[in-house]
């Protein structure tokens, strides 16, 4: 009887590892940017192409940078969440319009509503690379000092918003 204990133990250990492995999402790559200053950029604003925006303009505020595109299907899923959040006025939401066409992006905002204080245009995706974007939508929570505090890959869900983003933002505002 005793000689079965070791194989059984190893088996249970393996099952444990596999069970944890099942729950992990391989698409969620931990971002090295969390805790680092948000990469600088200087980009034109979507609906005012003659004006430009730099992240430094948001210094002193806790804000969300949401990467979106009109061709991105899961952005549509996420959109009502952002609209509701914008309505609550908890924090400013800015958009990074990623590899999109300006007319399509503008039409998309007209159709689905615009939760963004403004959106900047990253037409060739270079700033996206600086932010380590690989799956739109992605969202960055940036603090008053301009440091990235949280990165969400994929759509923000109600659970993530309530349990992670909002508490963290409230703590950062203090």
């Amino acid at each position, binding site marked *: 009887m005793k000689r079965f204990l070791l194989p059984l133990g190893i088996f249970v250990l393996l099952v444990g590892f596999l069970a944890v492995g099942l729950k992990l999402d*391989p698409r969620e*790559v931990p*971002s*090295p*940017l969390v805790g680092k200053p948000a990469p600088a950029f200087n980009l034109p604003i979507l609906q005012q192409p003659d004006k430009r925006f730099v992240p430094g303009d948001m210094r002193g505020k806790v804000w969300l940078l949401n990467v979106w595109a009109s061709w991105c299907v899961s952005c549509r899923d996420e959109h009502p969440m952002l609209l509701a959040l914008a309505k609550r006025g908890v924090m400013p939401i800015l958009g990074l319009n990623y590899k999109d066409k300006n007319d399509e992006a503008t039409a998309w905002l007209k159709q689905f509503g615009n939760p963004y204080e403004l959106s900047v245009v990253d037409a060739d*995706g270079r700033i996206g690379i600086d*932010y*380590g*974007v690989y799956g739109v939508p992605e969202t960055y929570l940036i603090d008053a000092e301009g440091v990235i505090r949280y990165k969400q890959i994929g759509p923000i869900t109600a659970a993530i918003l309530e349990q992670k983003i909002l508490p963290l933002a409230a703590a950062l505002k203090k």
Partner: protein
Amino acid sequence: MKALILAFLVFFSVPGNADDNEQRIRQLEEKLRCLVCQNQSLADSNAELAGDLRRQVREQVAAGRSDEQIVAYLVQRYGDFVLYEPPFKATTALLWIGPFALLAAALLVLVAVLRRRKRAPEEPALAMDEKRLVERVLGPAPPPAGRDGSAQ
């Protein structure tokens, strides 16, 4: 076909370091992982992001940056995940050492089992009265061969 390709390469190759650069670019793209389709390298992937990143690699090689600088540029943005060969550090120690540790453990177990088997007292093949019985039926025992009776 080979000759054709060779002729093509010779015809279009620019003398000097352009060829080296092409080779460097290819090597870099082979060891960098595409974030979108995660089991493909940048070189293999058709994802749009892979195209953008290949363009970055190409531009930076052209700008004279070293392989290390280009890899660091990508790691800074996407993490160690872009590397097919992650660096050795605290979080990856298990990854690098794990297989060798397992192998060592397996060897230890093997040695222990073999030793125990050697030490175990061998039971006499036949008790005295059984031997007598066999001799009575089969006749006297032949001269001893191998331990288990097989010829050597």
